[in-house]
């Protein structure tokens, strides 16, 4: 259709970028006016990360290495996965409300605007608390980086950014899939919670899995791509596996698939709550 083509041209990338920026700015403004919430979330973020680090520390107190990986290498993966988590928590946090929106029927309101439903839904929430995690992650990663004496060059830093984006895409894709299950079933909250817990295992080397499970955790629930495969590029630059090199492409593919799955659910939605 001709008119549809025009409408699509009108609503291109710059259209969405403009709207997104406006919503984010407005949302931030309103967030700042709820100071108590902001403080509690930030405190929560610091507590969770402290507790998370404690369990990591306790484990290494008892066992000096895991699968040939020493404390500092593991710390590298740990910091890396925390940073990779930030975009998910800042920008895609509304996925956590998807299930409630769908079950209560409120989701229908997202179907009445002439813009992409996924974009409209996700753009509604910008979560500042994710930034606390970023600070924590950067600190851990920097410490591990310097302890491992990895040289700092512009090249490696650019590579690091690319790898972090890749890992984020996997993280976001997993949660998109998990969130979208609510379009098909009731009480899908557990899927999200479970997937979110899986990410805690992403920071361990994928070499601990064998056989079938190696394949599952690489291609079905791709947690191996959240820290291990991208991390290898920097940690073991002499011996980079093919999957590490391909990870940006696979990351984009996974994200795209998760988006399609999410949208499939949204078009299937009938406004009654399954």
């Amino acid at each position, binding site marked *: *259709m001709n*008119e*549809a083509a025009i*409408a699509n041209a*009108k*609503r291109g990338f710059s*259209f969405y970028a*403009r*709207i997104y920026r*406006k*919503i984010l700015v*407005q*949302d931030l403004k*309103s*967030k700042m006016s709820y100071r108590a919430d902001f403080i509690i979330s930030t405190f929560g973020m610091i507590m969770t990360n402290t507790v998370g680090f404690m369990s990591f520390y306790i484990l290494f107190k008892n066992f000096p290495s895991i699968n040939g990986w020493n404390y500092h290498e593991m710390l590298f993966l740990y910091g890396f996965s925390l940073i990779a988590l930030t975009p998910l928590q800042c920008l895609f946090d509304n996925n956590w409300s998807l299930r409630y929106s769908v079950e209560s*029927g*409120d989701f*229908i*309101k997202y*179907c*009445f*605007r*002439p*813009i*992409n439903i996924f974009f409209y839904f996700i753009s*509604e929430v910008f979560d500042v608390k994710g930034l606390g995690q970023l600070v924590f992650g950067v600190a851990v990663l920097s410490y591990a980086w310097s302890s491992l004496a990895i040289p700092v060059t512009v090249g490696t830093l650019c590579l690091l950014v690319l790898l972090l984006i890749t890992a984020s895409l996997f993280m976001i894709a997993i949660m998109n899939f998990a969130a979208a299950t609510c379009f098909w079933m009731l009480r899908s909250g557990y899927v999200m919670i479970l997937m979110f817990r899986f990410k805690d295992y992403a920071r361990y080397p994928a070499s601990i899995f064998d056989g079938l499970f190696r394949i599952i955790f690489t291609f079905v629930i791709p947690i191996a791509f959240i820290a291990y495969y991208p991390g290898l590029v920097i940690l073991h630059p002499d011996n980079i596996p093919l999957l590490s090199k391909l990870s940006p492409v696979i990351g984009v593919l996974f994200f795209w698939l998760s988006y399609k799955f999410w949208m499939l659910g949204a078009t299937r*939605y*009938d*406004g009654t709550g399954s």
Partner: protein
Amino acid sequence: MKKEIDQAIVMENVVKEFKVLNRHEGLRGSIRDLFSRDYRTVTAVDNISISIPGGQIVGYLGPNGAGKSTTIKMMTGVLEPTSGNLIVNGCVPYKNRTKNCENIGVVFGQRSQLWWSLPLIESFRLLKDIYLIPDRQYDEMMKLYSDLVDLEPLLHKTVRQMSLGQRTLSDILAAFLHDPKIVFLDEPTIGLDVSMKAKIRDLIKELNRMKQTTVILTTHDMGDVDALCERIVIIDHGRMIYDNDIDHLKSYFGSYRILKVRLPGDIWEETVIDESKTDVMSVISDYQKKGKLLDIKLEEISTEEVIKKIYENETNERKKISGIDKSRDNTGIAV
């Protein structure tokens, strides 16, 4: 903008079916349902044909669960009809959801579609961007709004802080903002006080008049119908049972009157009388035989009563019915 398409909505033999799982009762039934594949088909909308010209306000009525919201969801592109043709503003809503959304506005009574934590003016500005409303058109609309309602105090409030009435008002303004060809209003006055209801009705009427917007209104409030609708469509059990103007609706039951009598002890009793069959005087004399009458009032039947009778008749004649044109005179009078 001129609405050049003369038919805003055309539905031809539209059917919508749902598959639902047969649930079983009790604890044992629930355990059985864990593994059950026992589905049945429910027809929510059953062969409805209707065409609505641009600029009309149509009251879309029916008892709860009649299939009203399913129809609205099909018209807005959320649901795909199982069979039949549905054209809204010249395109198929389900196939061109985004395009369809450009030309419609939707208000769901109790669910605000505005950004919960943003001041209203910011929501409006976002909508301006989303619908690509030209500056001039936006300014004109805002001017019109401030003429129609007391806009200023609302603009800087967030939706979260608004009362239900203010929220509904804001939602209606937001729905008309991009000057859509059709606006769907689902129970817009639900839960509002009398003066707010009147305000909302005036607003809808005025916007419809000035912008020539087609309005599809579902409601259970006959006050809305009386105040706004030129035409009424009634559906029940997924089927259309009435489609005509409001005057015709009243004249259809024109021979009906409501007799109110005051009995000793200050009790008012109401009787609906079909004058073509029963004489009012004979009913009164029946009352007099039983005891003294203190006062008598004879009233025209209200829209509310008419709709109630249509629903009742529909339930009584479920098997025979194919349209409202059939004679219903054989139905007894419910007292």
